């Protein structure tokens, strides 16, 4: 289940552009440079996430290090009116799709909110922590969009481990039966916490789709151009009414599962080194260099932007106020039960003592 022939690739490991019969690069130079900016900024956000966690500003952080190409490439291939259903590690997707809404994600990992953003604002559902569950939401959204005659698709992000959950298979089947405009985007980062692929499945992820009667494609998830092209094609296919596609992006989680995890307990440094050598941003920069698009000026701009975003992230998180006590009850119901309101008044009464006491 390592990199195979079937895998779609547009960039060699050294950044050379490869030919592919089906998938082509059709981005402008400007877009190609902007893609680089996004990759670098996303990595910097991730670094800040780790730092802020270490400083106690965040309760936990789920690093996306190494998965930037899979996230940025796929998210960039979508239209604003497509709808995205992320898991808990898709900071790159959030940044590309919703810019500084990524601050809400930091608030989530700080424990200041429960995701908190309006899913309709950027057509971006909140992070879904129960593994695989969001795949079904994407199918429902997609079916609704199809009924509406809207030319949009829904995209569900999930990991290799998630493919074992019943919900994901139910989503595959439901989408296939309804020819729903969904893209299932699986970041196969080789691990589900400490569980390696071989203990998770007995064949490659993308083939799962064939069993349910729709196409699956495996792509080099560290090749941002291939990911972009494959996702764009799948999204177009969905919007055109041809039904779902499963994309398996082969990538690697270079960091820990979360900041509470110690990956040295379960994986070798050899494996890590091998994948470090394949990390996506260096490869893409090599491509830009070969294409004559990389310049010192570009690098300077990109790094400045990363610095700016990092600073904003840091400042925002460090000054993020604790949520008001009323957040406990204010959003549970549109129309809250009287019994809950009575509890709340009792809690206020209790808390009032301390305010009085100072």
């Amino acid at each position, binding site marked *: 289940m390592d990199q195979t022939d079937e895998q779609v690739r547009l960039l060699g490991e050294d950044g050379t552009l490869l030919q592919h019969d089906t998938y082509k690069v059709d981005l402008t130079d400007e877009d190609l440079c902007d893609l680089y900016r996004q990759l670098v900024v996303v990595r910097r956000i991730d670094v800040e996430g780790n730092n802020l966690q270490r400083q106690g500003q965040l309760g936990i952080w789920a690093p996306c290090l190494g998965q930037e190409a899979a996230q940025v490439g796929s998210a960039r291939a979508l239209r604003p009116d497509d*709808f995205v259903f992320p898991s808990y590690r898709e900071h790159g997707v959030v940044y590309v799709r919703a810019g500084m809404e990524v601050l809400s994600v930091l608030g989530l990992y700080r424990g200041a*909110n*429960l*995701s*908190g*953003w*309006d*899913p*309709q*604002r950027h057509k971006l*559902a*909140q992070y*879904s922590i*129960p593994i695989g*569950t969001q*795949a*079904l*939401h*994407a*199918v*429902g*959204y*997609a*079916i*609704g*969009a199809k*009924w*509406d005659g809207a030319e949009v698709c*829904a995209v569900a992000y999930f990991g290799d481990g998630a493919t074992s959950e*019943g*919900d994901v298979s*139910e*989503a595959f*089947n*439901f989408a296939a*039966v309804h020819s729903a405009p969904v893209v299932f985007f699986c970041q196969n980062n080789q691990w589900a916490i400490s569980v390696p692929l071989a203990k998770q499945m007995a064949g490659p992820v993308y083939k799962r789709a064939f069993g349910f009667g729709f196409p699956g494609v495996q792509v080099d998830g560290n090749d941002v151009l291939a990911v972009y092209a494959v996702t764009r094609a799948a999204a177009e296919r969905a919007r055109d009414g041809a039904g779902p596609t499963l994309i398996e992006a082969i990538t690697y989680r270079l960091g820990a599962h979360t900041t509470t995890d110690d990956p040295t307990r379960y994986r070798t440094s050899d494996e890590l080194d091998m994948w470090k050598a394949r990390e996506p941003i260096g490869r893409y920069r090599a491509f830009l260099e070969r294409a004559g698009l990389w310049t010192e000026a570009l690098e300077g701009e990109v790094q400045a932007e990363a610095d700016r975003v990092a600073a904003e992230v840091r400042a925002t998180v460090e000054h993020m106020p604790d949520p008001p006590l009323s*957040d406990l009850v*204010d*959003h*549970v*119901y*549109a*129309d809250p*039960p*009287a*019994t*809950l309101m009575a509890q709340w008044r009792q809690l206020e009464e209790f808390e009032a003592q301390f305010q009085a006491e100072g």
Partner: protein
Amino acid sequence: MAQITMARALNTALRDAMEADDRVVLLGEDVGTLGGVFRITDGLLKDFGEQRVMDTPLAESAIMGVSIGLALRGYRPVPEMQFDGFSYPALDQIISHLAKYRNRSAGTQPMPVVCRIPYGGAIGAVEHHSESPEAIYGHTAGLKVVTPSSAADAYSLLRQSIESDDPVIFLEPKRRYWAKQEVDLPVSTEPIGKARVLREGSDLTLVAYGPMVKVAMDAAEAAQEEGVGSLEVIDLRSLVPLDDATLVASAAKTGRMVVVHEAPQFLGMGAEVAARVSEAAFFHLEAPVLRCTGLDIPYPPARLEEAHLPGVDRVLWTVQRSLDF
């Protein structure tokens, strides 16, 4: 006035809701061509088409997850779980998402999903077809849990549920599907969250909901006739929100209360009512709130269900225990 069954009232409520708002859609196993195994969705596929009434694959978690996705797209889905015991595969989607979605989105994302579930026993069915899971749903903050006992309430509460921006677990007492009531539809009854005093009484309050309301009413009638006492009967109508004001007022008046339900006793609705009323009406109670419920057992085979479920005699026996206190 027409004689209408609860099944018919529910069917009409769905039809009227779908006519009133074209974002209302139905989905579930066999709800389309067949009209549902209880025929609650009978005729709706024919009149509203496949985009409004969807026969789904056999997958309850999917039915619920897809409903959530449809709500995100602006629909008002009314999924059906075919039976109480087959709602359990959907519990993760219900607990982890349906109940929490609005709160997680800081109130920005409404979740107008009404999950219809035929529930309860006494229909001679095989295992898994006679469960009373209301306590699981009632304990899950973020949900409303509604259960009618009459055709009029079935109609009105279902219409209200579909209009609600909060997710509703709508429990249909299947043994009452074919019971008739004089009523002209459409009808509008008290809002969700209001209990109804079905019968005034002075000696003891019987609290029931859904399938047990008829049993409670029959018991009250019998108590009157047999000179046992004058029983007040409250139909809760919704378990969440619970109308504790009405409960407490009645307990304060009669001084005695018996809660009746089919579900196992341990951690059932009777416990919650007893805890609340015992607190709020402490100085008024002349006897503890008693519970007349199903046993703490898996639902038994049909030939034993009568003994498991509260009937008029066991309700009266419990009433007597309270009066003897």
